[in-house]
């Protein structure tokens, strides 16, 4: 290990156990599960998903690395491990120097506290010293552009103001290693520009930066090196330009097939899923899947022999393992006479994906309808749903539940005053 490396990652793996985490778990449920297990009842199998698999790379000091990959490829998990929020299942990580991670802007903001108080609180949560915050306080306030409201509780701030305040604090961190998630996805064009130029400043300052984005132009402009993560594995490591090129051309050729998680797969193997494509409504590649998007799931399979009356099914689970919905060709009344031998595909169209942003799992299965045998079961794909404007304010997150319904609020008061009040009523992105 050379001393010039600021990040060293060796055979890093992270698995999640679906169903192990019961949100708001109650002792009663766990007891019932325990009794059921011990009395030989139907054992609930733990679903394991590998978010990262045997990842090895290192980053020299001062390099700016863009991490790209499809939805659910493991990028966010990698950032969370690097930020020490979650711990790897196997492997090791070494990071040299002071790390600042921005997975969210304005982490720890408190509604009741003023802008000034929140700068101190947020700064110290991000690892700044009090003296440091004091020294740079005026700069931070000026950068945020909310100086006249600095002594107002931020519950009266609009979401844009919170975002600017949060980013102003983050931009004045002085880290050796900066880890940035897709914070640029929110905010208006002017704000995004400001963020990009702040990151540009970090780059020229010789800091090591890890940057996850779906914005290829931003990655190409800012980063010297690119890492393409696919199905939890490192697929390509090279200059940002060539990695982006390979990544984008993979969309054209093998058309965005998600890497399948084959561990834990069940079934006789007469039919095997060979790939799942997450496509937009029009059948084109979807780089980002947002709340409220239409979605086309294309299931590629290969049948070893002629299979009569196959039934395809899909289960959608939260990352806690809660079943959200299950659907199948049988339930929908679609009868398939036969498939194979050979390959083919089947499409499932979802008109509106009304899930709140967050991580979900898709489990695909094929059965033989006639004798109910499982041919290929529990093939897993991760689905990361990103925030969108579908909900008006783009402030929806997992704290607001799992699904949302297409809806409209109506008020006899004029639309304008309604919009003005909206910023006050809803908790902001920044505090979310």
């Amino acid at each position: 290990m050379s001393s010039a490396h600021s990040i060293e990652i060796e055979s890093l793996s992270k698995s999640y156990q679906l169903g192990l985490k019961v949100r708001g778990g109650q002792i009663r449920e766990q007891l019932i599960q325990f009794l059921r297990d011990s009395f030989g009842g139907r054992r609930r199998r733990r679903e394991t998903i590998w978010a990262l698999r045997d990842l090895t790379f290192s980053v020299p000091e001062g390099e700016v690395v863009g991490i790209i990959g499809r939805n659910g490829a493991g990028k966010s998990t990698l950032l969370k491990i690097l930020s020490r929020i979650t711990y790897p299942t196997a492997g090791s990580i070494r990071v040299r120097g002071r790390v600042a991670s921005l997975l969210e802007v304005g982490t720890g903001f408190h509604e009741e506290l003023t802008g000034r108080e929140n700068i101190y609180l947020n700064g110290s949560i991000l690892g700044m010293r009090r003296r440091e915050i004091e020294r740079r306080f005026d700069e931070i306030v000026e950068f945020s552009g909310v100086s006249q409201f600095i002594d107002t509780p931020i519950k009266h701030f609009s979401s844009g103001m919170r975002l600017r305040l949060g980013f102003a604090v983050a931009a004045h961190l002085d880290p050796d290693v900066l880890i940035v998630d897709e914070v640029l996805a929110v905010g208006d064009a002017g704000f995004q520009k400001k963020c990009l130029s702040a990151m540009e400043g970090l780059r020229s300052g010789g800091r090591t930066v890890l940057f996850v984005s779906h914005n290829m132009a931003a990655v190409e402009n800012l980063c010297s090196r690119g890492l393409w993560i696919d199905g939890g594995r490192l697929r390509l490591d090279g200059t940002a330009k060539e990695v982006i090129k390979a990544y984008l051309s993979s969309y054209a050729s093998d058309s965005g097939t998600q890497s399948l998680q084959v561990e834990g797969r069940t079934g006789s193997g007469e039919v095997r899923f060979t790939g799942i494509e997450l496509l937009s409504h029009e059948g084109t590649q979807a780089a980002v899947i947002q709340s409220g998007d239409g979605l086309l799931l294309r299931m590629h399979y290969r049948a070893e022999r002629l299979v009569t009356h196959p039934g395809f099914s899909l289960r959608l689970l939260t990352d806690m393992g809660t079943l959200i919905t299950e659907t199948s060709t049988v339930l929908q009344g679609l009868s398939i006479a036969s498939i194979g031998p050979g390959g083919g595909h089947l499409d499932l169209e979802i008109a509106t994906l009304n899930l709140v942003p967050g991580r979900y799992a898709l489990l695909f299965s094929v059965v033989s309808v006639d004798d109910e045998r499982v041919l290929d079961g529990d093939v897993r794909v991760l689905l990361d749903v990103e925030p969108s404007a579908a909900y008006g304010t783009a402030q929806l997150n997992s704290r607001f539940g799992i699904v949302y319904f297409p809806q409209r609020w109506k008020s006899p008061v004029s639309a304008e005053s309604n919009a003005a009040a909206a910023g006050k009523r809803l908790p902001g992105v920044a505090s979310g």
Partner: protein
Amino acid sequence: MVNPHASPEIPGVSLLPRAAPSVRRWDEHAEPEGVVRELWVYRELLFFLSWRDIKVRYRQTFLGVSWALIQPLLTMAIFTVLFGRVANLPTDGVPRPLFYFSALVPWLYISNAVSNASMSFVSNANLITKIYFPRIMLPAAVVVSGLLDFLIGSLLLVGFIIYYRVSLGWSLLLWPALVLQMFVLALGLGMFLSALNIRFRDVKYAVPFLMQLWLFVTPVIYPTSMIPARFQGLLAVNPAGGLVEAFRHLLIPSVPMRWNLLGISALTTAVVFLLGFAFFRKTERAFADII
């Protein structure tokens, strides 16, 4: 660029203190001294989180900080009437308001600090899933911020002392040690319950109920002397028992200090703290995955 503010105590670099000071790795368990050092590095965060707790607690309340007085004073008044006048429980010959108030100040601290600390992770879930800092800071900040109410209550107690013309003895020197024990006890239980609450949200419902039961086995309403001598040792197994009684003794030198009871309660406090800390350390890494 070399960071001009970089120093060995900057956050995030402190897990491997000896061999390679600027390298941190997670595939090894941090040494205990690493933990202590990290807490030192993040001490300002503890300050800011406690400060936030205090600010937020009384913001937008009409009576503000006077709540810190109202709670023990009203409880004392009710106890004086109900357990004193009506039930006529003995108070070791001490004026009743003084008897109840001197025990209520530490008891309410423990009860409030433990209840609030048990919710500290669940109500700050967004912090845990978005940023790293020593997780222990959250329950610790609650336990620290509760000390403000305790100090306000103690000041009021000084008023009582003057009013009742209590002559204080040398035993008052023991006060800082008792405060320390009280703090350690609340932190130990707070760490345990807050970590447990991440997996079992039952904690939220169980804690208020357990606090009520705990009050009944703690000599707040009654003096230890009322308990048959052979059960007194058992009572002191309750770490708050010997502690509350000792707090009372500081003001009332006529009541003999029960050193053996205080000793047992100090011992159980240490056990509670160590178990709480061990449980916390063991579950800490999975917090962000489970919460």
